[in-house]
């Protein structure tokens, strides 16, 4: 069927794809074009679709000096990057270990532990934000980097995902490794993680973007300007209508987009490769 109407469907499919791509690119382009133009012009709603190349200097300006008296954007980017990396790696590390425990080991209350983790799915940070903040305050972790990151790390979603991945791995693989003399850590390191590499990569991408986009928790716990992640920083740049330097806001928006996009592009290649090279 695909062969018969190949040309017709091709055009249609490409048309739809092109339209979709345009829809997604347009606001991004508008943001980029806007970042290079005069702030007052944008305020009046006279936003041109063409970038003003002379205005590109705004990027260096926001990176080094920030806007509206806020911290420089390079610092915000650094905080965001650190937060996203710590959340992604921390979540993966904790979930791999807990999924490994509930999948491959038989211990008392195993299923109870699993369901306890499962139930926390219903309790994301947003739901328990006051008690979590209170705990952080008691531990003197408000306005510290660990305070920003640690509550975001606990994750039932990733644990469930890894449990499913691990359940799909044939028992014989573990048994063969045991007969080869691999202990639990060696099996995890030498066999389980490499075999699940594709899932690790996929999850890393998702978690990195999730960590990068965190808003509510940083808003609450990172009142110190030195700890402001870029997503929060953008919002703080927007003051009253006339005082807002829109070109700087948009430039920061563009800068804030780049790291997650780079991570997606780099890792996507890797995990597609991992998927296609999988054994089955």
């Amino acid at each position, binding site marked *: 069927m695909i062969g018969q109407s190949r040309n017709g469907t091709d055009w249609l499919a490409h048309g739809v794809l092109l339209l979709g791509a345009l829809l997604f690119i347009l606001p991004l382009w508008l943001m980029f074009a806007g970042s290079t133009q005069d702030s007052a012009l944008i305020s009046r709603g006279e936003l041109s679709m063409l970038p003003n190349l002379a205005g590109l200097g705004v990027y260096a300006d926001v990176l080094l000096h920030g806007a509206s008296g806020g911290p420089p954007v390079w610092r915000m980017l650094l905080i965001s990057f650190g937060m996203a990396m710590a959340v992604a790696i921390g979540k993966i590390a904790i979930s791999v270990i807990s999924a490994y425990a509930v999948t491959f080991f038989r211990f008392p209350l195993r299923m109870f532990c699993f369901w306890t983790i499962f139930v926390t799915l219903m309790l994301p940070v947003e739901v328990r934000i006051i008690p979590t903040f209170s705990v952080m305050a008691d531990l003197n972790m408000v306005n510290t980097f660990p305070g920003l990151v640690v509550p975001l790390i606990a994750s039932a979603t990733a644990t469930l995902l890894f449990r499913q991945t691990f359940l799909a791995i*044939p028992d*014989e*693989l573990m*048994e*063969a*490794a*045991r*007969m*080869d*003399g*691999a202990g639990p850590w*060696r099996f995890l390191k*030498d*066999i389980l993680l*490499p*075999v699940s*590499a594709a899932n690790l990569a996929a999850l890393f991408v998702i978690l990195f973007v999730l960590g990068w986009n965190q808003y509510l928790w940083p808003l609450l716990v990172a009142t110190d300007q030195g700890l402001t992640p870029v997503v929060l920083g953008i919002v703080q740049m927007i003051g009253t209508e006339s005082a807002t330097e829109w070109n700087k806001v948009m430039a920061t928006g563009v800068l804030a987009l780049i790291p997650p996009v780079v991570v997606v592009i780099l890792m996507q290649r890797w995990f597609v490769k991992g998927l296609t*090279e*999988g*054994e089955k």
Partner: protein
Amino acid sequence: MATLVLDGLRKSFGAVNVLKGIDLSLASGEMLVIVGASGCGKSTLMRLIAGLETPSAGQILLDGRDVTRLDPSARDIAMVFQNYALYPHMSVFDNMSYGLRIRGMAKDDIHNRVQEAAVLLGLGALLDRKPRQLSGGQRQRVAMGRAIVREPKLFLFDEPLSNLDATLRVTMRAEIRRLQRRMGVTSLYVTHDQVEAMTLGDRLLVMHQGIPVQLATPMEVFERPANTYVAGFIGAPAMNFLPATLSHGGTAAQLGIGPLIPFADGKRPGADGRTLTIGLRPEHVLPAPDGLPMQIDLIEPLGSETVIIGRLEGGDMMSVKLAGAAPASETMSIAIGAEHLHVFDAETGLRLDPTN
């Protein structure tokens, strides 16, 4: 080279008794094949020996050392799995050398051992490949290579050929046998395939519902099956069974369907009238002009021979194996000779041997 002794080995999962007491002793360099229908406990037995399961009772002695409670890695046993269980992300070389690397062997020694095994198995050119780039037979060889390089005291084979196609199975079967002989490693081979069982083993252990039924050489098992289960399980097509009673002072069997058959090899114990089951292999049933009439249900031509499955007048099923082509008719007439008869007690199913 090592001996293996199993002493009263039992295993139950909850209330289910999977193994009901296994005593077994393997001589050094011997290859023992464990055969039985699925669910007979043969795989569990192997996993107990490997250390992947803990026995409920009993002992496992490898070379005189009690290994019953030892970790699999401490037992010096290598196992070839049914689905090969190769590490998918490692090259053939890494797959084969993984166990040695964990044991901290020197790099040069590992290299030599793997090379040696690769040459032996014809894997020399494939050492850099990943398992997914190999055919079924090659994967099977890698799995064996992984066992060989360890130079273990004991090989365990868990239905290693059942994932291969028929032609390859025959080739690999011969190869395993050759390899095992050459290396002289004591081996245990689990299968449900009776051809593998017959051809591979020095001795054969037939298991049924967690109990070892017969332990003997393959020919002995074939020629003198210990009971009706073994008789029906070993040999293809399966042995024919006919109900009968002992008669003429134990020298003959009165078949339920009529004829009286004198025993060629001697008198059976018991009083006249004892109920018997007479076993007769299909290849020993011969066409005879004025024998028992048989209705033919199915003809299976196998090329060099033909299997005819039919029904005797009393309703008993009977299969006949003939050399050459089948007669083109719907009925045939067969004779049940006095030679090659297997006599079993109908109640216990146990073999009745002549008492002279």
